[in-house]
């Protein structure tokens, strides 16, 4: 347990928007081991992106951040921007949702990659010539399986397709061989065939380079297909956490009611056409006025008085499987069947 790569404890993030307080992340804790793949799943506004940006120090100034995030023992929260920059891009790297908007449109892609390399060369010791950085960037482009890497090096983002742009983003993120790569909805804007290509690439690279991967997504299918461990977030809190095999597939069992609802609401190819989907009513709570008890209670058909009064803690009820629910689903049984 001591060799955790990233240890997040009681992370809290609060914004002030238009004179109102928004609790985006409300006390979450998790650990990422070296080389592991963690999926953080949640709907929009659940706090999944904000928590990762808080760790990277990428939130706008004026955001209140509490708790702790330690990268191999080094506390990241509260570091000055200059100190944090030593980790950003070198130990911690990030790939974003929309590759069309995440690359600078007026800068050649090669230069954007070499920038990532040269930014950290002082801290990595040893000066590199521009040529070396360029050579390294072309190798990175090859690493992410971009054909004709030398030619692509000199092109602008608009000359690349969506999938190619995301590969460039990955190449840029890998420039300093990070220990942890955060992929924030990295495949959401891509077509499903491209998504499969990019996910396979990411997993191959992860194995090759031995880095840990945090996948942020709204897609449970993606988590089931590619992650080791899954965290489900709702209204700024972790509501369930388990190994992927413990949630999905033959031996898995979802326990938290929200995760169950999420799983049931996804259209499956196996489901006959025109069947009604099991749905929960309502919408996520207003982050400026969270309910006193379980955040999901107002939408949960199994909610009882205790759910509305007290917040259930996220506790490890089964080894490796944690959930925050007063009345969890029975083991293995889907409530709607």
């Amino acid at each position, binding site marked *: *347990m001591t060799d955790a790569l990233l240890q997040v404890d009681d992370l809290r993030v609060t914004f002030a928007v238009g004179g109102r307080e928004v609790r985006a992340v409300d006390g979450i804790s998790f650990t990422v081991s070296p080389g592991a793949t963690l999926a953080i799943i949640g709907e929009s506004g659940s706090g999944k992106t904000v928590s990762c940006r808080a760790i990277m120090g990428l939130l706008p100034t004026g955001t209140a951040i*509490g708790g702790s995030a330690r990268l191999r023992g080094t506390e990241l929260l509260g570091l000055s921007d200059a100190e944090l920059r030593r980790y950003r891009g070198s130990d911690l790297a990030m790939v974003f949702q929309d590759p069309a908007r995440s690359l600078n449109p007026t800068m050649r892609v090669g230069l954007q990659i070499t920038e990532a390399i040269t930014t950290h060369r002082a801290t990595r010791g040893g000066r590199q010539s521009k040529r070396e950085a360029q050579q390294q960037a072309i190798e990175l482009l090859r690493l992410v399986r971009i054909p004709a890497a030398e030619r692509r090096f000199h092109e602008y983002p608009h000359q690349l397709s969506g999938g190619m742009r995301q590969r460039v983003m990955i190449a840029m993120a890998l420039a300093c061989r990070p220990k942890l790569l955060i992929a924030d909805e990295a495949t959401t804007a891509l077509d499903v065939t491209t998504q499969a290509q990019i996910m396979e690439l990411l997993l191959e690279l992860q194995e090759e380079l031995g880095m840990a991967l945090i996948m942020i997504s709204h897609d449970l299918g993606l988590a089931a297909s590619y992650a080791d461990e899954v965290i489900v977030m709702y209204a700024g809190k972790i509501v369930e956490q388990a190994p992927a095999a413990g949630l999905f597939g033959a031996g898995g069992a979802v326990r938290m009611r929200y995760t169950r609802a999420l799983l049931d609401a996804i259209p499956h190819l196996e489901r006959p056409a025109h069947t009604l989907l099991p749905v929960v009513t309502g919408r996520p709570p207003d982050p400026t006025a969270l309910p006193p008890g379980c955040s999901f209670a107002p939408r949960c058909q199994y909610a009882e008085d205790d759910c509305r009064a007290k917040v259930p803690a996220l506790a*490890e009820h089964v080894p490796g499987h944690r959930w925050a629910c007063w009345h969890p689903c029975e083991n293995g049984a889907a409530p709607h069947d």
Partner: protein
Amino acid sequence: MAAPLPDVTLLGALPPLPSLVNARRLRAQRLGRALRLWVPAGILILMLAMCFVLPLVASLPSPTKGDIIVNNEPPFSPGHWLGTDMQGVDIFSKLVYGGQVAFEIGAAVTAIGIAIGGTLGIIAGYFGGSVDAVISRVLDILIAFPALVLALVIAQGLGGSEIHVIWALSVFGIPAVGRVTRGATLTIRGLPFMVAAKLSGTRGWRIIARHVVPNIIPTIVTFSLLGVGIVIILEGALDFLGYGIPPPTASWGNMISNGQQILSAQPEYVLIPSIALLVTVASLNMLGDALRERWSTQ
């Protein structure tokens, strides 16, 4: 693997997290937002009241005829709290009546700009194609034309009077509003709700009246506030060059122009109308900014 947490279910609910946002900062945010809107609005209301209401309720000295005996009185003189000019005319009175002219011209030119330029802009932006090509080219020509030159030529040809100044400055106002309106209409035209409206069966002018116009009004209003400011400055420029409001009539431009002659001796003749101009235009600009901020965050 995750470090096991102590099983806290037995403890019941977690303690509520302390608020991380400073309540004072939240209040300051809200206050700043309100002030940015109401301070310039208040100043403008005061200025308008001073120019249009004050002459009705208080008897001000004549803004055109003065007593030569009390000429060149410094500010804070008895009876003339901003002093008098070379002809002994009360400066405060000139300021008030000059302000009337400035506001009237600013409002009229902007109104003409919105009426003609706005209509042209909407038509060009909404119908596109060759209609747009023709209107845009005409606006292009008017914009490539140095507006002040045209205004001067017109003002000189027609002779100085308030109504002529209004027509002359409209040459500037119409293409400016037209271009802004056209841009805003183009933006609106591309939005899905316009397609939705057409598919719902709404047609032609009704779409313009009910969908386009309400959605470009914020743009036009904020631009008009800036426009009134620019027009007031330009009106002063015409006066200043001698093609505006003909002299004995009070106007801020005339006051600045007249003060030029005794600039080094009595700079306050230039400073007083200049400050009035500055305060008015700045309030208009700030009000426009505040409204834009408000509407864009909606």
